């Protein structure tokens, strides 16, 4: 070990100390995309609308009657992506039962929540209260807009819309 130390001490280094001030580039940002700060921030607490939630769905066009085909598609998705945690009755499983959800919440709120759960759980007073009961954040189940709309139709069917 002594010899190693000797070797290290004796060795020659040619580091010059001509420092150039380095501009620290931020590689966390996508160079091609506009910075996140410059985009309008939809999670701003002041702007939060508890009737609509956060997300791209601003108005949902519900028909006068139930669309049976859409509801049937929604039911298929429900069995794969939702039924593990939600019953169709008002009984809580992991999350609350679905019965009555379309009467309690606006369609826009439902569409936004199921496609964009994380930001809404952070902001929505009703969801925060729900989180204290359930203690599991609803996962993002990667629903497409069409999936979400079909699910909403199935929820309506579950609530007795004909």
């Amino acid at each position, binding site marked *: *070990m002594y*010899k*190693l*130390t000797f*070797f*290290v*001490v*004796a*060795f*020659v*280094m*040619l*580091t*010059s*100390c*001509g*420092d*150039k001030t*380095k501009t*620290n*580039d*931020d*590689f*966390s940002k*996508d*160079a091609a995309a506009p910075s996140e700060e410059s985009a309008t921030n939809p999670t701003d607490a002041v702007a939060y609308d508890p009737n609509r939630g956060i997300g791209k769905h601003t108005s949902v066009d519900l028909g006068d009657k139930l669309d049976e085909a859409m509801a049937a598609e929604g039911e298929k998705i429900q*069995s*794969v*992506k939702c*039924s*593990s*945690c939600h019953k169709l009755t008002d009984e809580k*499983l*992991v999350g609350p039962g679905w019965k009555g959800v379309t009467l309690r919440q606006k369609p826009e709120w439902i569409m936004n929540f199921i496609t964009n759960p994380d930001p809404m759980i952070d902001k929505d007073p009703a969801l925060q209260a729900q989180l204290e009961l359930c*203690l*599991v*954040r609803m*996962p*993002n*189940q*990667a*629903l497409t807009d069409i999936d979400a709309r079909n699910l909403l139709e199935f929820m309506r069917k579950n609530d007795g819309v004909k």
Partner: protein
Amino acid sequence: MNNIFIKSSLAIVLVSAFFGSCRPKDTADAVGGDAAQKVYVAPGKYDEFYNFVSGGFSGQMSVYGLPSARLLRVIPIFSQDPQSGYGYSEETKPMLNTSHGYVPWDDQHHLNMSQTKGEVDGRWIFANANNTPRIARVDLKTFKTVEIIELPNSAGNHSSPFITENTEYVVAGTRFSVPPDNDNGDVPINTYKDNFKGYLSFVKVGKEGQMDIAFQIETPGLNWDLSHAGKGKSHGWFFFSCYNSEQANTLLEVNASKNDKDFIMAVNWKKAEEYIKAGKGKKIKAKYAHNTWDEKTHTAKSEMRTEVLVLDSKMLKDICYLIPCPKSPHGCDVDPTGEYIVGSGKLAALIPVFSFDKMKNAIAKKQFDGDYEGIPVIKYEAALYGEVKKPGLGPLHTEFDGKGNAYTTFFVSSEVVKWDIKTLKILDRVPVYYSPGHLSIPGGDSRKPFGKYMVVYNKITKDRYLPTGPELAQAAQLFDISGDKMKLLLDYPTIGEPHYAQSAPADLIRNNGQLKFYKIEENNHPYVAKGEKEAKVIRKGNQVHVYMTSIRSHFASDNIEGVKVGDEVYFHVTNLEQDWDVPHGFAIKGADNAELLIMPGETSTLKWIPKKVGMFPFYCTDFCSALHQEMSGYLRVSPAGSSVPLTFSLGTNMPAK
């Protein structure tokens, strides 16, 4: 490492230190005052480069960020990984199948990233297995090993997996020449010169990355060590270094170090393609495995191939030429222009630089020094551009910064030397701690290097870190090479023994369409359960198939009864989550293989044979939610022959009132 060797190498190092021009007081002086700032990547911020580092005898590949040297991932390639279940789960076992059966380990030396027009393109990384010769492909969208091909007629697949500049081929070579697989290998070892052959494999890479051995070139029995493809003007050629031109079969340390020069062989693979078209290849019998991963069924399959196309380097005279190279060359590195081929004779005290133009001219004018077992040997001077004089001792490997400079590691004198390719003048030298093998500059072996950082991978660590008993991690040192002088920035331990590394700008990979989870709709696993209503348990004779789902935070089913001692139980676990970074684990008491780590939307299978009667809890091993501790279940095991009916349930198996 014995004492005499250390002493003598240190003495040599100190002598070589006189080449330098100033003396630091201690190693701390080696680090400039702004080094910390240059490697600091603030919390939440990303690194500038991905750095893929071979794992050597760990059989894995580690992924670091540069310049922070933060470890991002360790990817199992040739080794079983109990953490993920790779090599243990039923789906992944075929990935490690070979003609020798299931081989769950290897010595992973070199990596090469796919290239387009000679530039790294961030699609795949290829990895070699040295021990049981194989090449693997890792997909950089999933950071997962997706294909492994075995190489027949080979042993010690060392000069691999280097690629051509549009990833047309990935090559392999045999470091330990052996009798071909199809010949009788049961011969006396001292018949090496008669019976042993070297094989170079050219593996075609398809548009989706799929590998297929296009042809092998049979060569005399030599130890093929490293290789690199030509670039630009020399595209169409491949260069392989070799040692043991003495063809020794015992005490190689002495007997393979006698000749002043061994060889770099230039292979004209475009010409080889022409010969194949003209029907000059010979199909010979061989047995080798080709294993592929299917991202839709989440399952690997292994197929055994039975023949390979071989070209004879003696018969087909204008595909192979030998260039004499001092002395037992290791690195065989082509500069970004494709004109200069740098040989690193690991016992030499100079670096020969060969010229592609001169080599072609010498071939045209037949400036040969006879032949070596039928392969023309080009006159050394006829192919030589020049020599770097007194660069240090024991050159191993050279990479390039794209600014006309080369950087060579010296094992014996424990340093890196920067030199000018055109003038062959030495520009700078730095000590490294201790005894480097390879170094890596992002893109440094391609046509477009990013000459900002250099990482040096050292074989000896000694006193660099807090001691950890007899076994130490190996040492990597990061340098800033953006200026005239190389500046040491950081020193950090590594996983396994890194031999070679590849790096690419972070954006190239993080924006390549990174997969975040598997779409459950696209899951075509034969035992998938798409939703809890498909969760079930089925008995087929003594096989019990459990179709299980997992979602935060429960399994379906979680009460299973009617399993008997000696049954083969298959847990097919589907993770129903559809969001990034929500894997679930699965483990059951007494499992003698591993756990499973199942990515969102994936199905994975653990085989379990209960050996005794009793109650066996299973649970999620990956902390998934506030109710993770509750994510568990029971499996009841009854004696063989028991009449307990097979039942499964979730939330309904309540006590009788």
